[in-house]
């Protein structure tokens, strides 16, 4: 099968859905002429024109707010917020308007809105351009939170997100854009809310998403050489969480480790770990372990940044300790 980058996979998803449905349009900062800060929308302005690929002013609140207004009146906006770090600027729109409007209206409206954004550390950009805020968003009933880690998932899930009648926060990772993977030429979508077993194993279940999935797979590879067999699961969607796939694995391995890039306290691992406890406590041989980001703002210095998020070595060490 052909291999393309994560960036290219996302770009194809956007182009195909715009081709398929004339109500789909893109709106955000530098998405048109520039092609997106990380190049995801490159070529779409030339292909679909300025009516459907709209450069907005630097107005995060209006981008999300207007996206909602357009979504409940017949359009399918795909908005872009350049960094997840800027979502807090429009958190009021996301939390109070986007997430709740359908419920508050007694189910009488649908919100086919996608908010694409990008987060994570690894480029030494400091505290305002490196955060992992997903745990804030899984605390908002009414939205769905998708975080793909490989090109195949990125494309299939973005296409489903655009076709979905619920608001989707689609969080990409800056380090993943240039990574490559197999993606078929033909049209496909992937279901939102379904996890994927990325590597099968017997001794321990490692749950990891976004950039951390790559680290977890590398760790599993090395652990394999030591005779430790790790099963690696990518939830792909954090809200709703496919806890069944995770617990089925834990019932087999009896041990679970969650790898997350966000700050440990109140992070996604806390939620996933608790759900494992609720669903598979009797199968656990030891407490669920978290390998997580440090509870600090992201430091600029690369010397500190790499210590602030999990590493392959850190995952290996945690698994050895748990299994050994």
């Amino acid at each position, binding site marked *: 099968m052909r291999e393309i980058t994560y960036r290219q996979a996302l770009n194809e998803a956007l182009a195909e859905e715009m081709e398929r449905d004339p109500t789909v349009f893109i709106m955000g900062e530098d998405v048109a002429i*520039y092609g997106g800060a990380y190049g995801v929308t490159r070529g779409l302005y030339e292909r679909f024109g300025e009516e459907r690929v709209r450069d907005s*002013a630097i107005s995060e609140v209006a981008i999300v707010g207007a996206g909602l207004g357009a979504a409940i009146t017949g359009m399918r906006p795909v908005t872009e917020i350049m960094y997840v770090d800027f979502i807090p600027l429009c958190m009021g729109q996301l939390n109070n308007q986007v997430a709740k409007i359908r419920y508050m209206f007694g189910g009488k409206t649908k919100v086919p809105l996608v908010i694409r954004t990008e987060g994570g550390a690894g480029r030494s950009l*400091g505290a305002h351009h490196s955060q992992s805020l997903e745990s804030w968003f899984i605390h908002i009933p009414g939205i769905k939170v998708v975080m793909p880690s490989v090109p195949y998932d990125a494309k299939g899930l973005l296409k489903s997100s655009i076709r979905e009648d619920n608001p989707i926060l689609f969080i990409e990772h800056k380090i993943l854009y240039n990574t490559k993977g197999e993606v078929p030429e033909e049209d496909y979508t992937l279901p939102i809310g379904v996890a994927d077993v990325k590597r099968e194993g017997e001794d321990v279940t490692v749950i990891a998403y976004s950039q951390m999935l790559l680290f977890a797979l590398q760790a599993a590879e090395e652990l394999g050489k030591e005779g430790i067999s790790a099963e690696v699961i990518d939830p792909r969607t954090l809200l709703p969480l496919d806890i069944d796939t995770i617990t089925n694995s834990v019932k087999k391995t009896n041990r679970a480790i969650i790898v997350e890039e966000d700050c440990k306290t109140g992070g996604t691992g806390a939620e996933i770990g608790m759900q494992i406890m609720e669903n598979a406590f009797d199968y656990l041989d030891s407490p669920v372990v978290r390998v997580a980001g440090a509870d600090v703002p992201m*430091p*600029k210095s*690369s010397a500190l940044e790499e210590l602030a998020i999990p590493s392959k070595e850190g995952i290996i060490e945690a698994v050895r300790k748990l299994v050994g």
Partner: protein
Amino acid sequence: MIEISHDDALYYLKQMMQIRQFEDKIMDLLSQNIAQGGSHLYAGEEAIAVGTIAAIRPDDYIVSTHRGHGHSIAKGGKLPELMAEILGKATGVCKGKGGSLHLADVSTGNLGANGIVGGGMGIGTGAGLSIKMRKTDQVMLCFFGDGALNLGIFHECLNMAAVWKLPVVYICENNLYGMSVSVKRACAVQDLTKRALAYDMPSQSVDGMDVLAVNEAASHWVEYARGGKGPSLLICNAYRYYGHSRSDPRNYRTKEEEQEWHDRDPIKAFSQRCVKENILSQPEVETLEQEVAAEIEQAVKFAIDSPWPQPEELYEDVYA
């Protein structure tokens, strides 16, 4: 004829050269991957930081933007410490934790660059409020780009400052683009001074390539604020020479437009004018340029030779 003393001319020129050479050097360091991450470079806009900050006292405040190196230098930041910060070293002015996007030097009254567009505007307004409540006669220069004009915080802050008559000069660095989106495409109103009308605030537009014009305008609004008359909006028009970031293809502006602005280079224009009017001599200008180059080399050497932060630093400074 320009009215400026020999010493002032030398001071302005030196600061502008420092900023230009500092930025050119960082571009080098980025290409060699010695500087990591992003850096938004100020080359082309030097006259704004130098002209405005020369209008205030050392005990006055500034708050900066994501394009903040120039402001930090003009406010008296030490080049080695600033350079070390940009490289993420322990000797940096923020111990390597802030970097280019968060350069701050509280000891010089510089309340920091900001990774969030418009992020400094609340800080600037609040410092103005504090000045007023503490009853000092300080002033705040609050810098932001044309891109920040379309964020809610711009309107909220200007309104608050106007209602409470805060001693803040809001300085919009209009370089025609917010990343790739031109002011033409982003703003409904093209005469940016009109933005102040909604807050009944005085406003002026000035050639941001002319350090003396900038200084004259800034001096007026600084005295206005210091005299208790309230805030003002100063629009300084200039141009960013480099791309927004390293990967910027600059396909949203023309080579001709870039050339037009380069032809009006603020450093060249000012030094030529000073030489022509016998305020500075050509050899003086050349010597200054070499002195600054040596200073920048030293700063880079200091930064490169400096140690990385120690691992335990990761958990320090989160709380007081």
